[in-house]
């Protein structure tokens, strides 16, 4: 619109000035055609069908600015803001554009457009910041016709820097094994729990032993709580909580025969699965049991959490995987995943994929948003333990061999990315957050393996910060406790809270009935007419009517559908006439 105005120079500008503005710039070496094409491509990130009129206007303004010449005659070779790659923008996209209907109130429309502009700006800024993050992820590439899975840990340790090389180590603890393993949220501390009662926590990077105790009882599982100051140990009878010096803080007798534990860090919930098929939630910030559910599915020794929505997945001996939240006594979903018993389950951090392995020696990948199988792999010995890393590497333990797979959900995998044999059968496995390290607990102790490309390279300083000081940890703890999410907010879709809760027809109808004082849609009750003669009694009459009632209904529906079609057609015609701009003189007589 504004372009048509500026093309009429005689009206707006004195001639000399117009020539000055519109003369062609002097030929420069950088103004080759490729450059021009690239400049046009700059807007790729921005364009799209959602581009509003406003944005068009803005681009016009930008373009006109480009045309403006600097005194020296040079033009900016990189005009406008730097382009943002589309994939980065996608990474920070939260939701699609809201559809605005014509009937919306203008103020509401304004609010929506404003908030969308803000979120778009935030998305762009975050994407820009993403480009300048300091660390890059690790990788491992073999030479030509060399499989990466044949590269041994020693070779890797030899070829990396000294600090990283020290991250590959083995602890020979043959006396009290096999071991369960857990890393703290920040990835700095390691917790080992031996089957025969040995519990140790280690600052594994400095190899400083924080505490070591023997609980003189069998240990089923160990888990760090929200910080490295406390951990829970599932012992033979009940659940214990120790602090990092090994002092017993609590003994929770209500939680008995616990086999597996998970900790939900944002909810401060410790979830336990017991041999008596009880799934219990313990709020560790107030020490209260939130819910206890009898799953009625036997011994629960396969468990994992979905880090995206805090739903707990349980694997059962009949081959099913069930999904649980503390708000419901029934499973949210049941999936038949394997023909034999389920041996292990893992969910990736985006909450999209679930990997299961079973006694039928299969490993399967599921899309758990739609509950559909994606891939199925056959492992000769079957995987006993599964673990997923932050960047989506999957480690599977078959007997005493640890295999790491890459891209199990996107491409069909034939070979493992890495493989390593430990001394005895694997019992527990955990990827270390923010490090390229996989901790493996087995019958002969603990082995820390280097897995390049496993960990998230850039951590967030306000979340889990591996380098935080004691003071920072305290501050973080206070903040985290303040924004503890209540257990009743656990749902399959964690963004549900931010959506509009539309009233259903029943609710609207109920409101209407209440406001009116009567039900406008209620049908009149049938009262049989008293009739003396004839076979056609009132009841029979009514029955006959009921038989053909659907035909009336069909007629009604047909009528309304036709009316809808005609109104829609009329609206379109009107629009077309308006758009084409051609109006005949006789149009005014039309309705």
């Amino acid at each position, binding site marked *: 619109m504004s372009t048509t105005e500026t093309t009429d120079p005689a009206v707006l500008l004195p001639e000399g000035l117009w020539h000055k503005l519109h003369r062609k710039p002097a030929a420069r070496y950088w103004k080759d055609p490729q450059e021009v094409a690239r400049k046009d491509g700059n807007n790729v990130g921005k364009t799209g069908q959602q581009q509003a009129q406003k944005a068009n206007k803005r681009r016009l303004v930008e373009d006109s600015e480009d045309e403006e010449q600097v005194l020296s005659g040079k033009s900016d070779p990189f005009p406008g803001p730097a382009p943002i790659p589309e994939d980065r923008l996608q990474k920070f996209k939260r939701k699609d554009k809201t559809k605005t209907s014509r009937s919306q109130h203008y103020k509401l429309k304004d609010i929506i457009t404003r908030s969308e502009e803000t979120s778009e700006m935030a998305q762009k800024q975050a994407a820009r910041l*993403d480009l300048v993050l300091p660390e890059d992820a690790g990788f491992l590439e073999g030479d030509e016709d060399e499989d990466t899975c044949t590269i041994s840990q020693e070779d890797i340790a030899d070829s*990396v820097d000294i600090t990283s090389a020290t991250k590959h180590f083995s602890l020979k603890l043959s006396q009290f094994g096999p071991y369960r393993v857990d890393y703290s949220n920040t990835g700095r501390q390691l917790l080992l729990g031996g089957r025969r009662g040995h519990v140790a926590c280690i600052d594994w990077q400095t190899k400083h032993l924080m505490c070591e105790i023997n609980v003189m009882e069998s240990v089923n599982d160990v888990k760090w709580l929200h910080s490295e100051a406390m951990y829970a140990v599932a012992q033979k009878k009940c659940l214990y909580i120790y602090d990092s010096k090994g002092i017993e803080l609590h003994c929770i007798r209500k939680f008995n025969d616990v086999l597996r534990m998970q900790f939900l860090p*944002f909810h401060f919930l410790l979830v336990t699965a017991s041999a008596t098929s009880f799934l219990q939630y313990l709020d560790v910030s107030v020490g209260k049991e939130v819910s206890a559910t009898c799953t009625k599915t036997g011994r629960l020794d396969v468990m994992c959490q979905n880090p995206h929505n805090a739903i707990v997945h349980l694997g059962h001996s009949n081959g099913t995987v069930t999904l649980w939240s503390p708000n419901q006594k029934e499973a949210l979903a049941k999936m038949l995943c394997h023909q034999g018993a389920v041996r292990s389950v893992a969910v990736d951090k985006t909450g999209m994929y679930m990997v299961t392995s079973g006694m039928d020696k299969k490993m399967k990948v599921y899309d758990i948003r739609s509950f559909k199988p994606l891939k199925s792999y056959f492992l000769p010995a079957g995987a006993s333990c599964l673990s997923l890393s932050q960047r989506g590497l999957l480690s599977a333990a078959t007997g005493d061999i640890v295999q790491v797979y890459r891209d199990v959900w996107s491409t069909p995998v034939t070979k493992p990315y890495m493989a390593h044999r430990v001394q005895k059968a694997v019992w527990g496995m955990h990827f270390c957050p*923010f490090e390229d390290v996989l901790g493996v607990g087995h019958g002969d102790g603990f082995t820390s393996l280097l897995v390049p490309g496993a960990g998230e390279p850039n951590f967030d300083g306000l979340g889990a910060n591996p380098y935080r000081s004691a003071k920072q940890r305290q501050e973080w703890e206070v903040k985290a406790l303040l924004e*503890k999410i209540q257990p009743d907010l656990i749902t399959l879709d964690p963004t549900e809270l931010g959506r509009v809760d539309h009233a259903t027809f029943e609710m609207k109808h109920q409101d209407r009935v209440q406001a009116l004082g009567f039900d406008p849609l209620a049908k009149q009750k049938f009262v049989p007419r008293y009739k003396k003669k004839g076979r056609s009694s009132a009841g029979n009459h009514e029955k006959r009517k009921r038989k053909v009632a659907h035909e009336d209904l069909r007629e009604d529906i047909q009528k309304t559908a036709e009316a809808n079609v005609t109104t829609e057609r009329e609206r379109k015609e009107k629009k077309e006439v308006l758009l084409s701009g051609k109006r005949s003189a006789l149009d005014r007589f039309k309705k």
Partner: protein
Amino acid sequence: MKVKVLSRNPDDYVRETKLDIQRVPRNYDPTLHPFEVSREYTRALNATKLERLFAKPFVTSLDGHRDGVNCMAKHTKTLSTLLSGSCDGEVKVWNLTKRECVRTLQAHEGFVRGMVVRFCGSSFFTVGDDKTIKQWKMEAPGYGEEEEPLNTILGKSVFTGLDHHQKDAVFATCGQQVDIWDEQRTSPIRSFTWGVDSFSAVRFNPVETELLASCASDRSVVLYDMRESTPLKKVIMTMRSNTLCWNPMEAYYFTCCNEDYNLYTYDMRFLDKPITVHMDHVSAALDVDYSPTGKEFVSASFDKTIRIFAKDGGHSREVYHTKRMQHVICIKWSLDNKYILSGSDEMNIRLWKANAAEKLGVMSPREREAANYNQTLKEKFQHHPQVRRVARHRHLPKSLYHQTKELRVMKEARRRKYVFLMHFSFEASALSLSEWPRRKGHGGVMATRAAGVTYAVPPAQWKVWLVGLCPLTWAQ
């Protein structure tokens, strides 16, 4: 073989010396920050709770009057000056920053009925029960000088209210009629009457400066143009309005506070029904004043409370009360939009914060940022039931609480009766539910034009609910 393993240099992530602040590298990747919505919701809920925790609106009380405070006036030029007149004829000038009275003068015998500061801020006018209008200098008299008015005009009858023109040396009084005075003359340049009534308040329009509105005792609000000899328009309501106030930003709206516990916002162009009815008081509303932004107004009531309404909100967003505050007679919203001043029966003037939870004084940048963030969160989640419940909760004295409940029950009963009538009465079959006035069209009954004095009679079906609705029966 090519290999790279994550290996961070701790020096990049840890501060160098203890004197530095800690380094906080950020990564905004959404997968590193799960449960965004739930966490924001929790923060919003906490922020709302904290807001209620810090809501301490009462700032100070100015005492010194020896009788109830009957009227107040804002200084047009300085924020820190307030004038107040009491029922014993005394006028006090207050310095709000020092919270002290700087000047006292005996202006009238009997009540000081009205008070207004001239637009230049150099003098002010008072009217009283002794039938006089007095103009006073703003500065206190020098040492040895006597406190004397600049001008005194003796009127024929008692004046009940007064307002000054925004730009010209003209002011208006009301009593038995509405008079327009030139400051230089001792007799009114114009007098308006419309029937035989007395008027309780008169206000100049702040934008269309020649217009004025007044509340009459025959339950009407009358509009005038100073340049014409007859009044413009009139709207008769079911009960009497006490005072009114123009919206300073959208000056075609005015709000009048009514004896029937409600406040009514009218559009001056369409008087046949009010734009909004503001309900919540449980006794007559006595005074109203708009915030300088025109987005909110505050009302004082006989039920010993002050309420703050959004200009288009049917219910109040805030209620202020104390144990000691009696019937609030007059109310003002300070010109910096931050404070509210109320004058009440028990001789005190109270200073309140307009935003109860606002922190006074200088805020550090981080503090301000946090406050802004919390404000945004509160707005974002304001419709969630938990957040709304906390944000709406106000403590009320027991009597008020029960009265509110009782009024609600009465209203519901009337509505139910109307619904029954609509369905079961043969005569009233013409009624429809859309006629039931929820908010709009509640109190305003009819507007008449000055040109042809034709009183439009309310439609027949209105009578049915009007009888039930108001304490008075409809008078034809």
